[in-house]
């Protein structure tokens, strides 16, 4: 260790109690920030992977120009037909990072159990692509609880009829407590039409998994299809739990009388390039003869829940960062003020010997940096211990906007530790330099005659 650092290290032992208090404040603040960032990071991973893969926004969502706002009202005009899909595919072939391209048809209608009908918001998904999306590493790591159906299996596992999945709330409202795999084989209804005078249809609703979907086709006519409920699932959003429905793209296209889709979702290997693709794609598609607009998953228009939730979490994180930074700063300033007052004569001696205020300040900066480094090490250890305890405790809580309960987990990574450490060290260094500089500039004689120490 060089002479300056060696001196600084020895000086740490001169005011142990005060230094310990400062170290405690810095270390605890650092641990708190690490854990908070770990909490925010966890939810960012959960929400982003959920938005991209499970809610089918993709890294980039591609609509016909004007389609995002209008496809629900004018589905035929703003739907993407097969020729346009092929053209967009040719445009995407020029982009290296594309892993998958999925086609989705969104629509709304009525779902009936023979007696009553309820509105649904549904998505027709690609049955071949869906299992691949659910096997993505990010999904497996951050949304494992969303992968398991409370009942039944995915619609992509069935063929020969229209399989649909219902959100748990919708299934309960319809009385469809059993999914197809749970219906006792051979148990036929006594009559095709349930007793609508009884709340449960005299047991008919739960006796089978059969439902009817009714909607207005793209051509403006009524159409309906039979379907079987093959799973219950959670949408991930409390608002959608009473109306969500998922089916295959083929079923939806039959229901809505079309071969078009609402949008394409482009899944990139590196989601960090989503914004760049979203900017470039319209021109690339125009060269292929299709007018499109593209939105990265970070756009509130395609991922409002993700963007809104992250906005809140980031605001909360920023607030605590400012708060803790203030506490650290004030702790350092307070401790340092006492220290320089006590060591006024020492500073005066150094000034008399020809040390410039800058070099004197550097002495104190080294001391505070060493103190902070030790605090950060302790704080990192504390953060790690708390993280392990919390994560093993399996604490569940109800997050606003989320159906059911969520696991409380803290997942800080190495980058968080390092970045926050660098931030704290920088803050300490600047605070020390500013606090000492003014004092060190005083006249040497004044400093030497200081009576504080």
């Amino acid at each position, binding site marked *: 260790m060089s002479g300056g650092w060696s001196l600084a290290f020895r000086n740490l032992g001169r005011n142990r109690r005060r230094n310990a208090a400062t170290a405690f404040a810095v270390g605890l603040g650092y641990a708190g920030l690490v854990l908070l960032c770990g909490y925010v990071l966890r939810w960012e991973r959960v929400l982003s992977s959920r938005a991209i893969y499970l809610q089918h926004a993709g890294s980039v969502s591609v609509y016909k120009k004007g389609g995002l706002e209008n496809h629900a*009202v004018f589905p035929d005009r703003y739907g993407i037909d097969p020729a346009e899909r092929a053209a967009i595919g040719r445009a995407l072939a020029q982009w290296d990072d594309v892993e998958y391209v999925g086609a989705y048809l969104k629509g709304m*209608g*009525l779902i009936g159990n023979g007696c009553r009908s309820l509105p649904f918001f549904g998505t027709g998904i690609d049955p071949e692509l869906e299992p691949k999306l659910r096997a993505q590493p990010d999904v497996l790591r951050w949304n494992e609880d969303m992968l398991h159906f409370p009942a039944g299996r995915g619609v992509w596992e069935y063929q020969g009829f229209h399989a649909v999945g219902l959100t748990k709330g919708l299934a309960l409202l319809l009385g469809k407590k059993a999914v197809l795999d749970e219906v006792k084989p051979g148990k036929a209804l006594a009559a095709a*039409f*349930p007793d609508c005078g009884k709340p449960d249809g005299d047991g008919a609703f739960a006796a089978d998994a059969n439902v009817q979907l009714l909607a207005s086709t793209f051509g*403006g*006519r*009524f159409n*309906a299809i039979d379907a079987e409920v093959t799973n219950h699932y959670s949408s991930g959003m409390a608002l959608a739990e009473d109306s969500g429905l998922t089916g295959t793209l083929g079923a939806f296209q039959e229901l809505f009388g079309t071969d078009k889709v609402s949008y394409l979702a482009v899944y990139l290997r590196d989601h960090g390039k989503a914004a760049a693709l979203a900017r470039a794609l319209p021109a690339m598609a125009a060269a292929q003869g299709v007018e499109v607009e593209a939105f990265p998953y970070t756009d509130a228009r395609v991922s409002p829940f993700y963007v809104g939730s992250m906005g809140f979490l980031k605001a909360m994180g920023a607030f605590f960062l400012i708060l803790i930074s203030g506490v650290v700063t004030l702790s350092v300033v307070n401790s340092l003020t006492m220290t320089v007052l006590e060591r006024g004569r020492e500073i005066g001696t150094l000034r008399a010997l020809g040390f410039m205020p800058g070099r004197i300040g550097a002495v104190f900066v080294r001391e505070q940096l060493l103190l902070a480094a030790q605090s950060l090490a302790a704080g990192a250890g504390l953060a790690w211990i708390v993280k392990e305890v919390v994560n093993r405790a399996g604490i569940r809580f109800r997050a606003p906007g989320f159906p059911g309960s969520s696991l409380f987990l803290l997942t800080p990574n190495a980058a968080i530790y390092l970045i926050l450490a660098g931030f704290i060290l920088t803050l300490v260094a600047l605070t020390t330099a500013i606090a000492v500089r003014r004092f060190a500039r005083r006249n040497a004689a004044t400093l030497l005659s200081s009576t504080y120490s």
Partner: protein
Amino acid sequence: MRITCFLSSTLLSTTAAVALAAPNIAPSSADRAPRPEAKAPVEKPAAKPTEKPAATKPDAKELLQNADRARSGAASGMTWEVTLEDHDGRAPVSATYLVRSLGDDARVEVAAPPRSKGEVMLFNDRAIWFHKPGLRKPVSISARQRLSGQAANGDIATTNYARDYDGIVTGEEQVDGVAAWVLELKSKAKDTTYDQIRYWVSKDRRLGVKAEYLTLQGKPMKRASFVYGNKIKLGSESVDFVSKITIADALAPDRFSVMTYANPKPEVHAAALFNVTRLAE
């Protein structure tokens, strides 16, 4: 709003209009081409003016009952055809329906186009059921689910104003040269689609000539105009009956539907025809 605005106007409007049409009506006289802004045509001064002096406000309920009769026909059973044309800024889409009614019930079957043949909509009082060949069970459509982008016409044509609304006469206006009473109707039933309706009833023939279907804030959501080119015989009485209804979206006047009524005749139907449990058989 988006949840409820999905139902096909064609079927509903047709069904509604059909359910209200009367039987045994002579073919209607030539009708005007549909206009983007649904406006009621000029009333033919065929019927002799009735009784009350214009200055005296009539009883709103009586006006509504008379006007309803001109859209509902005989309760003992009727059959007629309805041709529906949907205009939404592109090529019009047309469909033809065969309608049979009995009292407040109506059964509407698609006659054309061929791809939709066999589809049935059943009106049981205020409930609507939809069924098509191959479905295991019919699908119910409640009143509040009937708001549609381009013609929840089922409601507009089917609505029994005297039964479902309380009305007051609030003034007088001219509608295409025809003097009419203006009525403000407020829903008195929980399951009506529209909470408020502004209704113009002609003074001389006591027929509904124009209607605006309002939001809770009182803004028009849809506008309808009615033409009564047909006549039906109810007993010994010859009664005016609807021949055309034009329904337009108040916010997008270029989107409208036209329902034309033809070949009505009285016909007794079995009650089983209107039984929803028989639809899936």
